[in-house]
């Protein structure tokens, strides 16, 4: 009585999809039902009229979608992070690549259905309430968000696939959410010390982060939906256009590379690594030294008070955080290899040299 394996996993995921759909519909639709949709006009007492424009609250569904794209890869990777489950799944008469693709597909099904239901029920509520937004824009925005969610989901799946435990999977996802932004922020500030300006976008330094598509979408969609109301949306899109295109392209590249990485990993990763220390080059091994370097750049250039004692204290705090992170996250032991201390000293020395050069240039 063998049935199609994709059908089995979809059937298995369906009760979860129903629960998530109900949660999303409740969160988004209750917001839409209770929010103010009228433009408030008031007089400042001197004959000048001011307008308060309602928010479309489209950011609510975008945030919920982002949360789903973050959580679903964790829910769907259980079988590769559990020794007992991996015994069963790896012994099944099914190709590893096929199993991974089925889980990717079923994972996106768990995102797509709740989002689509909540989005369109929300749209009907707005139409029913006679909201003064540009309703036609909701259709292209839906497809844009579907694209963004696929990219963010695939990218998260890759980070999760690099971890050997669930805790590491969560940490890798979080690290990659912030690392792109910190790289941008740190470099732009550090290079400012040399008088070099690398500001590309509208001051918001998130465009290298996989979540940026969602953040920019919230601002951009809201302004576009309000565009019909006149000045409320005017010019806002222009502010975000460059960043929006950039972040979409960056995330498309992330997703493409991530899918390639997932497929490569599923062929080459060893099953016996489940529940072991995560020693991927995409994990703590690389991330912690990068974070150390970036934190040194950020703290000393951006926030340093100029007081030697407080600067020293900042250094000590960052170096301690690096050592503790190695102990707590990567090695789960008080003893960490000497190589990690050597890396720390090298980064510190490089940073001090560069910082001295920056001070000399100025």
């Amino acid at each position, binding site marked *: *009585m*063998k*049935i*199609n*394996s994709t059908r*089995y996993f979809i*059937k*298995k995921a369906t009760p979860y999809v129903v629960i998530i759909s109900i949660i999303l519909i409740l969160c988004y639709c209750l917001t839409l039902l209770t929010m103010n949709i009228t433009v408030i006009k008031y007089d400042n007492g001197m004959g000048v009229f001011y307008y308060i424009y309602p928010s479309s609250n489209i950011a609510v569904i975008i945030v919920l979608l982002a949360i789903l794209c973050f959580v679903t890869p964790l829910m769907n990777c259980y079988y590769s992070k*559990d*020794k*007992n*489950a*991996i*015994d*069963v*799944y*790896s*012994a*099944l*008469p*099914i*190709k*590893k690549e096929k199993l991974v693709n089925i889980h990717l597909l079923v994972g996106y099904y768990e995102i797509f259905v709740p989002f689509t239901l909540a989005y369109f029920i929300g749209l009907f509520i707005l139409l029913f309430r006679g909201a003064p937004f540009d309703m036609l824009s909701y259709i292209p925005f839906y497809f844009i968000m579907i694209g963004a969610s696929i990219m963010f989901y695939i990218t998260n799946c890759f980070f999760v696939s690099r971890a050997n435990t669930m805790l590491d999977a969560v940490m890798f996802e979080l690290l990659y959410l912030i690392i792109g932004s910190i790289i941008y922020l740190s470099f732009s500030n550090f290079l400012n010390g040399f008088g070099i300006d690398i500001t590309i976008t509208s001051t918001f330094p998130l465009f290298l982060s996989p979540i940026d598509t969602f953040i920019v979408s919230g601002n951009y969609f809201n302004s576009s939906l309000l565009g019909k109301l006149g000045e409320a949306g005017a010019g806002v899109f222009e502010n975000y256009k460059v960043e929006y295109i950039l972040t979409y392209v960056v995330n498309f590249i992330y997703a493409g590379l991530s899918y390639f990485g997932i497929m490569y990993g599923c062929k080459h990763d*060893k*099953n*016996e690594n489940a529940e*072991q220390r995560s020693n991927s080059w995409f994990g703590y091994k690389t991330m912690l030294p990068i974070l150390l370097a970036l934190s040194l750049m950020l703290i000393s250039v951006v926030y340093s008070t100029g007081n030697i004692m407080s600067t020293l204290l900042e250094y000590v705090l960052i170096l301690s955080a690096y050592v503790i992170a190695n102990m707590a996250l990567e090695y789960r032991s008080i003893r960490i290899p000497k190589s990690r201390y050597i890396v720390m000293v090298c980064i510190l020395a490089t940073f001090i040299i560069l910082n001295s050069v920056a001070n000399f240039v100025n």
Partner: protein
Amino acid sequence: MIEVEHLYKTLGNNHVLEDVNFKVEDGKIFGLVGINGAGKSTLLRLMSGVYKEDAGKILYDGKEVYENVEVKKDIFFLSDYPYYPKNSTVATFLDFYSTFYDVDINLFNKLLKEFKLPLQKSINNYSKGMKRQLFIALAIAISPKYLLLDEAFDGLDPLARLIFKRNLIKRLEAKNMTVVISSHSLRELEDICDSYGLLDNHKIMHSGDLLEDKENIHTYQVAFEKDLVKEDFKDFNVCYFSKLGKVIKIVIKGNKDEVVSKLNKMHPILLDVIPLNFEEMFVYEVEEKGYIDHENK
């Protein structure tokens, strides 16, 4: 036929298996024995295609198993801590496995009745033994060409062990299954196994036909007029020697008739031959390797 040839596997810095070689003939039950940590579970994971070998080959009818779906279709691996989807009932559990394997539902239900398992209860609430019974029922209902069982008797009560052994033998005869089974319950293995392999020091130290090997080692209880010591038996392949008064208990490897003939030449006043069971054989084998001393035995 299963052929394991020059198999090597390292986990971390630990060389678990080094140059492991053995064969299992079709339709036979092969018992895999060894002390804790000998590498039995790792070997079974390699044989089921869960782990990839570092070197060597595992062949099923001449075909390698790792990432070979065609071969895996004929294998069912029951690990020591078998997995089931969270919050499963028997029905959802069966849904999962019947997606990938041909399960004989009627036989499965019949075995569940024999084991008296509660069908509506969540598997989470099953005891360790009940979970094991459920998986054994599944393994027998799948009746694959090759069945790999890790710690198969673990947690089973004597009645469940009996049901398991009886049904396994029945299906083995009906389907010409080949079974590799690891267990510390050597008395149970002795009942069902045709051949066995002793995994020790990262390799199969000994493998062979269980009955033949049992015929080749015995306990001899002897007494002599003279006061003899262990050194007087240096011409024998002695596995164990103890003396209480004049009575000597000695375990000797070798053909029974030849050993008795040699002992008779020493003019004993008492000579009894006591056959060894599999568990005693195992104990003397591992004792030879130095794992157990006389006091602890």
